[in-house]
């Protein structure tokens, strides 16, 4: 692996290699991991706000012994109108790897085409966020011991959430059984579902009812209310698609509840202490997974 732009660029073997490397990183003593990228420079270029992705990439690079060069768009020549292409070409000459988040879709692909050093996509608008998908798969595998054959429910705004589209692809790759739960107006694009089913031959069902019976993993994302012209409609959908303690009554004891975070109203704070809530553990897994990605990218 040189660049990591899209989950679509990875085959099952590539994903397995990242998951297995992440497991190794998680167990590795800091003294040892700190030698892996010693002497290397990593630039984090975030053109959009980020908490988890930015911090965990920084933590990952530092735990590997690399030095960080943080790019700040507001105090760089970007503010003077310099193009992304020129900025990438220039920074590529200074560092050994670039971690890029940009609001435009395909920005990471474009950067990877221009840069000689590895480019890692940390989110390109509404398109891809491959390290999120990898850490989701890593978390599921770590919690359940496998992905194949698991019954996974993806719930929330499946129309707009990039996380869900990429995760469906990743789950398809490993042969999970997927149930898509969303308001009918926020269903995932039919073509995306058809393509994933066609590529991997998995079962994908769709419903608007929350039924957690027999579910192994419940992956929740928020309703993107800002996309509704009618704010009340958005609020109403959020109330219906909420995982509170009432909704969890009767759900399997070993259910794992995941969320890419930040969570707002879709999972109220009282669920955080439920042993089935695994989203903070999931966020923590971002570090070993991103360590694995940076390390594998540096090896080429």
């Amino acid at each position, binding site marked *: 692996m040189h660049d990591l732009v*899209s989950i*679509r660029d990875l085959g099952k073997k590539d994903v397995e290699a990242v998951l297995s490397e992440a497991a190794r990183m998680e167990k590795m003593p800091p003294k040892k991991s700190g030698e892996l990228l010693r002497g290397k420079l990593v630039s984090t270029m975030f053109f959009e706000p980020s908490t988890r992705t930015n911090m965990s990439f920084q933590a990952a690079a530092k735990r590997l012994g690399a030095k960080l060069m943080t790019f700040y768009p507001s105090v760089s020549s970007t503010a003077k109108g310099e*193009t*992304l*292409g020129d900025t990438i070409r220039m920074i590529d000459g200074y560092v050994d790897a670039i971690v890029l988040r*940009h*609001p*435009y*879709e*395909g*920005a990471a*692909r*474009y950067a990877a*085409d221009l840069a000689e050093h590895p480019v890692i996509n940390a989110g*390109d*608008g*509404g*398109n*891809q966020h491959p390290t999120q998908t990898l850490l989701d798969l890593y978390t599921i595998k770590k919690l359940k011991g496998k992905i194949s054959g698991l019954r996974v429910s993806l719930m929330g705004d499946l129309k707009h959430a990039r996380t869900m589209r990429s995760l469906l692809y990743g789950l398809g790759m490993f042969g999970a059984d997927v149930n898509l739960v969303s308001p009918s107006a926020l269903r995932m*694009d039919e*073509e*995306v579902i058809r*393509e994933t089913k066609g590529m991997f031959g998995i079962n994908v069902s769709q419903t608007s009812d929350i039924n957690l019976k027999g579910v192994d993993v419940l992956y929740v994302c928020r309703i993107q209310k800002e996309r509704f012209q009618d704010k009340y409609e958005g609020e109403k959908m959020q109330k219906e698609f909420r995982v509170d303690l009432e909704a969890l009554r009767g759900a399997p004891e070993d259910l794992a509840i995941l969320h890419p975070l930040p969570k707002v109203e879709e999972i109220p704070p009282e669920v955080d202490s439920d042993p089935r809530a695994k989203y903070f553990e999931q966020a923590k897994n971002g570090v070993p997974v991103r360590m694995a990605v940076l390390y594998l990218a540096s090896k080429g």
Partner: protein
Amino acid sequence: MCLCAWPCFTLPQKVDAMPLMVEKISEGTVIDHIKAGAGMKVLAILSDAYPLSKMAALIMNAHSRKFGRKDIVKIEGVFLDEKIANRISLVAPSATINMIRNSKVSGKRQVKMPDTLTGILKCPNPMCITNLERAETSFLRVNDRHLRCRHCERLFSPEELA
């Protein structure tokens, strides 16, 4: 009927009495077997690609043994390059391109949607990086109904792209 601006057919005194006549071209291209209704889109692609001084004719709803009805486009003095033929394949996948030299058909081929279309189409997604920076667009054929932008990864129908 022909909708082009040139006097490429003769209006008879009595319309019912004479067939519609379209001039033959001696050097140029005839795009045949266009699905009825798609001829205007083919003409739009040609007018986008070639100077407006070229004489062109569009015949709509011509009789076709194969399709029942079809459109035909003729353009004088132009031989289509590969990129334009690929664009035409998006709106008229059944079209055949006939090259005319010395008033005779010198070559004939059916258009074929290629697996990759590079540098000839604009991505309709306003948030695609290709609409911000000077990145060359590239679309990958997923199936007959969809192509995927290599950058933003969105799926588009051939007609949306053409």
